[in-house]
Each structure stands twice: as C-alpha cells, then as structure tokens.
C-alpha cells in the first residue's frame, strides 16, 4: 500500500480547488476574448496587437488569476499523485465549464453536447477508482 487516507484527502481537496478555479478561469477568458473578438496573429504586428489587447483586459486578468490558483493546486497534487490519475480526475471541470458557460455566458448547449459532457464526467468516475500513485515516491 503506497497511499494513505490523508493522501487521498489532500488529493481530493486539491482536485476540488482545480475543478472550481479551472472552469471559472476558462469562462472569464472566454468572456474577455469574446469582447476582444477574433484577431489575426499571422504577422508580428498582428500578434503584438493581439497581446496588447489581452494584457489590457481586466476580465482576462481575472481569468489568469483563477487559472493561476488552478495551476498551483495542480502543481502541488502532482508532487505525489500520478499525472495519469490527476488529469482525468480533474475532468469534472468539463461539466463545470459547460454549466458556467450556460449560466454566465448564456451559451446555447444542445442536449447532445450535454450528453457528451456527461460521458466525459462518467469517464472521470471510472478513473477515480484507481490508486493515485503507481510509481515509487521521490
């Protein structure tokens, strides 16, 4: 046995943080980028223009902040848990993203798309019943 109940608790807690802040970050980025609109990035001036519009958007910065919290939680949990465990387990975030996109951004989500999101979440449940670590510590 190479994992304890406390290791499980820490893992679930940090995955919970990832599930909240990852989708929130994506939705905020989505809102910010929709306001900026489709910008070409083929030439250096276009790319610079794109970058400057991103860096002056408050919504984008809020999104970056949320994703920074997500990234920190992700980094910490990866210090002990397998990548192939953490990545699918955190995919509940996909359901959360769809919910937030629907309620905050008023995006139209077809029943089939909801079904796809549900399948993604079911895949997560299957993965969640595997041990967090399969390699030795350190």
């Amino acid at each position: 046995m190479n994992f304890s109940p406390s290791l499980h608790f820490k893992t679930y807690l940090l995955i919970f943080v990832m599930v909240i802040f990852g989708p929130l970050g994506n939705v905020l980025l989505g809102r910010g980028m929709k306001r900026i609109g489709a910008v070409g990035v083929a030439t250096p001036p276009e790319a610079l223009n794109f970058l400057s519009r991103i860096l002056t958007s408050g919504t984008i910065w809020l999104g970056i902040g949320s994703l920074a919290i997500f990234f920190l939680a992700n980094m910490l949990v990866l210090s002990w848990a397998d990548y192939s465990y953490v990545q699918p387990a955190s995919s509940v975030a996909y359901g959360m993203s769809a919910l937030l996109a629907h309620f905050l951004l008023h995006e139209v989500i077809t029943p089939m798309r909801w079904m796809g999101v549900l399948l993604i979440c079911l895949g997560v449940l299957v993965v969640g019943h595997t041990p967090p670590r399969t390699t030795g510590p350190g």
Partner: protein
Amino acid sequence: MIIFIFYLLIIGAGTGGELCVSRAMKELGEVKDFRPAALVGVIIRALRVPWMWAGLSLMATAFFSLLAVLSRQNVSLVVPVTALSYGAGALGGKFLLGEQVTSRRWAGVLMVCIGVAVVLMGRGN
C-alpha cells in the same frame, strides 16, 4: 485551418507542458507543508528545476492558443474538445513517466474521448 493548428497546440503543448511540470514536481518530492511561506519555498525550488521551465514554456504556448480559439468559438465547445489531451496524457504518463496506466484508467480515458466526440457531433451553433 488556423483553428485546427491552435487546437493541436492546446492539446500537444498543453499535455507536454503538464508532463514536464509533473516530472519537475516528482523531482521535488511530495509537498507536506501547506503554509503560505512553505508554498512560496516550494515554488522557488520548483523554478530551479529545468523541467519546470520547459513545462511553463509549453503551457504558455497552449495558453495563448486557447485565447486565440476562445476569441472565435464558444467556451462550451472549446473546453470539451481540449479533453482530447486525456488520451495524449495517459500515453505520456505511461511512456514518458513510467506510470502504470491500468485497463480501468484506459477505459475511463476512452469514455472521455467518446464524450468529446459526442460534444463535437452535438455542435448546434
């Protein structure tokens, strides 16, 4: 076509970046102290690991690709499509990090991929 390239970058560079970060954090060892000062110490030590810098560069590439796609398409389409990185992640975990990906994990990853396909087929706008 440009959207396709951006998706490839999100999935490829994003997964590669996370694998590098995972490798860097494994070199650091399990984090047991969660006090803010200790966490700052962890971040500083992590930044001394070359794999972390490789990971951050790849993840930055994926991040800007994500922004470019989000300026053109809805969050409810873009985010599920990026779940295709799960297949790439399981392969990378197995072959690059030596993790044992069990048949049950593979089944879960497969379901996630089927879910993404259904999301794409359900594109109604």
